[in-house]
């Protein structure tokens, strides 16, 4: 495991400082991602990192690879075009919870359904950070935001359940509290030949912590710890009243770009029409 100075080679120094607030969890996720790059000896020249819009989606700016910062919610659509046009590229998609589950929900379920070989990280801080602390589809019922000042009355979206139902072939959830295991988890997701979704609960001290009087820093990591339960030795159905964390599905099914290549082969042989 390499940490610190040696991981700087994966970062764009000229894009620093990053945009994240002190105490935000997103930098930790980026650190884990670069460590996963290092563990897999990823070729930065043939890797593309695509982001949507929001705090999490700013991550591509700071990574020294091919990077694309797209539109709110649509990163997966751009990534699908890149991957289909050049399947040999490694394509990673970084999204926030509003990005992936509100405005981009349609693209998320269809990327899962296609089982296209993308690795999607959803950084879930249960609130809209960049626009100033508004309620997200992940904001827990009763929790405050600037657009739910009396507490949210809506039900929470569960990215893991959604991805499982939509057909993703690798689905996992972790938290920034579980940072130590995160690089290995991302490494596994990167190696998965199909659509991989990793949800990371990440803390927002500026809005979620402050508006809900949960404190910052360590207190928010404790909030994540208390909110979740690892599924080691049990199944996710056994977890009651908490969010299960771990790898929920890891299975090999025909991947989209390979299925497309096979279809082209059939078409060329005249099997078509």
């Amino acid at each position, binding site marked *: 495991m390499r940490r610190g100075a040696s991981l700087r080679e994966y970062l*764009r120094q*000229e*894009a620093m400082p990053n945009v994240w607030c002190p105490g935000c969890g997103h930098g930790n996720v980026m650190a884990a991602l670069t460590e996963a790059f290092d563990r897999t000896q990823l070729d*930065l*020249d*043939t*890797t*593309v990192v*695509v982001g949507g819009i929001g705090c999490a989606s700013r991550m*591509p*700016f700071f990574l*020294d*690879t*091919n*990077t*694309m*910062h*797209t*539109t709110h919610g*649509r990163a*997966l*659509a*751009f*990534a*699908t*075009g*890149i*991957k*289909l*046009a*050049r399947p040999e*590229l490694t394509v990673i998609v970084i999204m926030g919870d509003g990005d992936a589950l509100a405005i981009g929900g*349609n*693209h998320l379920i*269809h990327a899962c359904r296609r089982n296209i070989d993308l690795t999607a990280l959803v950084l879930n801080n249960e609130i809209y950070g960049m626009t100033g602390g508004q309620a997200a589809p992940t904001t827990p019922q009763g929790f405050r935001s600037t657009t739910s000042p009396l507490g949210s009355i809506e039900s929470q979206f569960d990215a893991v359940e959604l991805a499982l139902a939509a057909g993703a072939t690798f689905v996992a959830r972790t938290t920034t509290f579980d940072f130590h295991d995160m690089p290995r988890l991302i490494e596994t997701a990167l190696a998965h030949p199909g659509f991989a979704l990793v949800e990371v609960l990440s803390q927002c001290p500026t809005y979620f912590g402050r508006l809900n009087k949960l404190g910052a820093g360590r207190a928010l990591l404790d909030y994540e710890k208390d909110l979740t339960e690892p599924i080691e030795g049990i199944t996710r159905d056994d977890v009651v009243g908490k969010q299960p964390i771990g790898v929920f599905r890891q299975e090999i099914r025909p991947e989209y770009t390979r299925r*497309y290549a096979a*279809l*082209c082969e059939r*078409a*060329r042989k005249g099997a*078509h*029409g």
Partner: protein
Amino acid sequence: MDQLIQGNEACALGAVMAGCSFFAGYPISPSSEIMEWMARMLPTRGGVFVQMEDELASMGAVIGASWAGAKAMTATSGPGFSLMQEHIGYAAMTETPCVIVDSQRVGPSTGMPTMPAQGDVMQARWGSHGDRPAIVLTASSVRDTYEMTVEAFNLSELHRLPVVLLLDATLSHMRENVDLPELPVLSRAHPASPDGFAPFGSPEFLPLGRGARFMVTGLSHDESGHQQASDGAPGERLLRRAFARLEADAERITHLRMHRLEDAELVFVTYGITARAGRAAVDELRDVGVSAGLLELMTLWPFPERVVGAIAERAGAVVVPELNLGQVALLVRAVAGDTPVVPLGRVDGSLLAPDDIAAAGRTALVADRSPA
């Protein structure tokens, strides 16, 4: 060899001729046959066809594929074209070559699925927020549709821009006996080396994953792709440079067709399917001694204001027949000097007939000759 084909098929054949290797789309009448043909043709040619979950995704995938190095396109109609606007702006901001075909139908909203219209002229130019350079082309026959699809790709590759080809429900679905020739094909220039290459503000294009690791962003940025969200100067510099490139290449971009214009006292300025009826109206008027002529705008944007202005100023009266309530008439009026410009619009899903156009022409001439 002549073949009897539909406008939408000619569009797909033009795309393949131009080297299109990626199509992403979402079904919508009257454009769907374009994607159906691409679904048949691309897999046998090593290209990619994908049916996306909506038009936003289609346009996103097209831009992603273009950045992966593919010549990419989508095809849609009014409601889908509206949904694509954000990403057309993104393509302009990121200097992404791509082609969008909009087969127009009556709007707004669901309107009349699917009767012909020409109501997306202004949307094709201004539909996305902010300022941007734009190229918008038209066609008035099945053969034109083929040629202008190739031209849309060529101009998008040459100028690193999203180029829009406006068709309409009638043109998309009508069949004509045509011979489709091989045409010159242009492809985006690549830099000699990725080292030190500035990926923006240059006609040269370097796809992602080809040795230079840079940032593509819809945020205001400089030539290196580095975001400049708090300093507007680099963004404005790039935007003005993109406008200047189009201005400098105006002759190449501007496609016009003139019909009996030489001594025309009565001039029709029109485009698309309406130009066909307009030409018939001109011949009808000439037969009875009215000196009428017609200018067909096959490039709507950048609007060829100098040519239109010069022709309009020479004329006694100008009539602008179009299947909307005066979108191009507004542009013609702005450059016509003292010449009266009469809009002739229709938005009920019917075409303008030659008789309608001829009658409007006669009325305009009479009005022009009557004492003030």
